[in-house]
């Protein structure tokens, strides 16, 4: 019992710091979301009006929310899948494996600003790589002003984010794969399992905990996406690439609507919990 108490005592300093710099501001943010406030002077209590107005009257917010949800789906579908496949491929022994790992991880080390600028040049319809490639393939008719087209601008930005974002989950999966016992594969092979069976019946189940971490970090990153959008399109054209993070920043710092900015932050957290918590519960329940 004494040992147990001591254990908790060791946690106190960290908990105090955590409460002071995370929990308290979070609760204060929730509190602020119930007020109309420009950061100065009196706060006016408006109850849930900020939330109601965001969902019922604010078209930009609805676009931003939709974009974030699309981004999450795309991230889970493509970033996680491609990262897993790359990790499996790069986990096998072959010559130059380390070099390939470095190549695929390299974009992750670049800042979003660099990524944004590089990809904006790639999409440039006059001198960009993409349109040059289309011209080379005699597919000029497919050429458009990629980032100025509201229907596809978000997907164009996502491709840039995908290129950058694969490195980190790939590394997580690689780490997870190192922990899968080789005996499992050997035993399955003796039983006549083919490669697909090995992948679906051994690799995937053995990576369950890695999946939880990757899923959670990718979902959180998807909700926070801002920099790459800011650099490539600044939320445009016509708000088609607006995200909750950029809109929260605009409401808080440009329009000085701190109540609305805080409401957006709270909604972001809620959306993440709605997505992540059931997944974690489901994954751990199976165990």
């Amino acid at each position, binding site marked *: 019992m004494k040992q147990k108490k001591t254990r908790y005592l060791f946690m106190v300093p960290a908990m105090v710091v*955590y409460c002071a*710099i*995370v*929990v308290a*501001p*979070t609760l*204060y*943010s929730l509190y*602020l*979301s119930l007020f109309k406030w420009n*950061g*100065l*002077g009196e706060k006016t209590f408006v109850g849930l009006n900020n939330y109601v107005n965001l969902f019922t009257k604010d078209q*930009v917010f609805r676009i931003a929310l939709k974009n974030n949800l699309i981004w999450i789906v795309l991230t889970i579908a493509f970033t996680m899948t491609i990262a897993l496949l790359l990790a499996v491929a790069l986990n096998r022994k072959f010559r130059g494996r380390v070099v390939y790992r470095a190549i695929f991880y390299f974009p992750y080390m670049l800042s979003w600003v660099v990524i944004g*600028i590089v990809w*904006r*040049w790639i999409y*440039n*319809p*006059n001198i960009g790589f993409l349109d040059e490639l289309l011209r080379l393939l005699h597919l000029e008719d497919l050429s458009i*002003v990629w*980032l*100025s087209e*509201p229907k596809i*601008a978000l997907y164009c930005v996502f491709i840039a984010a995908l290129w950058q974002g694969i490195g980190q989950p790939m590394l997580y999966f690689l780490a997870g794969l190192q922990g899968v016992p080789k005996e499992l594969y050997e035993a399955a092979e003796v039983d006549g399992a083919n490669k697909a069976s090995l992948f679906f019946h051994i690799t995937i189940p053995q990576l369950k905990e890695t999946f*939880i971490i990757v899923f*959670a970090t990718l979902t*959180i990153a998807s*909700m*926070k996406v801002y920099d790459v959008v800011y650099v490539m399109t*600044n939320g*445009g*054209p*016509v*708000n088609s690439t607006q995200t909750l993070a950029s809109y*929260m920043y*605009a409401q*808080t*710092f*440009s*329009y*000085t*609507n*701190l109540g609305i*900015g*805080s409401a*957006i*932050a*709270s909604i*972001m*957290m809620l959306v*993440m*919990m709605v997505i*992540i*918590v059931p997944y*974690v*519960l489901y994954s*751990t*329940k199976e*165990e």
Partner: protein
Amino acid sequence: MKKNALCLMLALVMLMSLLAGCGSGNQQNNDNSTTPPAQTSEPAAPDNTEPAADPAANEVTLTFWTPTWRQAAEEVIIADFMEKYPNIKIETTYMSSDDIKANTKIAASSNTLPDMWYNWGGVLADFYAKNGLCLDLTDYAASHNWSDRFLSGALEQATYEGQLVGLPQNLIGIVMFYRADIFKQYNLTPPTTLEELEAVCDTLLANGITPMTTYGNALMRTHEALLEYYAGEEEHDKLLLMEADWSTSEAVSKSFAKLKEWIDKGYFPATVLTEDSNSAKMLMYSGSAAMTMENPGMSSEIYANEYNAEDYAWFAFPSGTGRISAYAKLCQFNANITDEKLEAAMLFWDYYYSAESIAAHDLIEQPTATIGVELPETYALADGMLEAISDNGSFAVMDLKMEPVIMSQYFTTCEAVVLGSTAPEAAGAEIQAAVDNFLANQ
């Protein structure tokens, strides 16, 4: 197993709460990094003022937030100033444009504003006057003859409801820079009417040159000049002050229609909406575009990059009224600043724009709002701009005259008109809706 799940859940909640914490309006992101002072030689008297108190006699420390693009110049100026006045210490924090806007607002909410900070004239500076956070310099200016020291246009841009909200540092006009060599090649002369401008654009287009280059939201510079053309002085000013109705204004419809017509004709690059400042200007430097609406900073950029300055010149956009769009750059002072600190600050600004300092520091941002300061060689291409503003008058740039929330709608509408999803005649109604919404929330 349940315990493991609980631990995992708690860890995730902690991770997510980190994000929510970011939304708090009570953040204090005031990175007060300082420049160490060099306190050496004898104190000297100010160049051109006689302060009421003698701030050089006592130890005074001033905190100052200023943009990073001035760092190279101001590090030297401040070091030189502190060498001259060893009892005055200036603790400077350099920030990007976005950071200085955000951090001053955060500091305002927690009453931790520095003694003085850089700002743009218009709504950004007015915010601090409205809330009683910056010093009203009206009396100080009157007693120190600022009307003889600063350009009237700059003082006007620094005034909000009768209050002088800051010390004017620069008066920036936005004009059309053009490639003089390309104009010469096609026998073109700087246009003085809108029809002439269109004729110039048609000639350039026929010769495979993009007439005008600009980027993203900067397209508004062309639109606001067109608005001035169609609305005239009085209506344009009323629209900016939200005293006229955007939805019923014929000038608003016509100006958007003209912008759309120019876009469709190819007067701008196809990438105009998502272009960035540098790559837009590169089109001009490379000779594939011939004109751009820019501020005088373009002159120093041309010299800094060693382009042939003779290939460039400027003309005022033919707005019909002759007025040029302009804005001021200011230094605002904390409303709670002490007299002693204020005198020390003014001593600093006297030094900053003194003939001695201008001669010694060629990186000082130009054109200054101080009367009688000659432009350095790197700003030779901006020569005559201040005189043109002085002779013909100016109108405030829209993004510094209207509230950010309205400007956000304006930019969206502008993009929608360019893309064809909003008809030019419907554009005014969208902007007016944002104006009405803003006024209703006041």
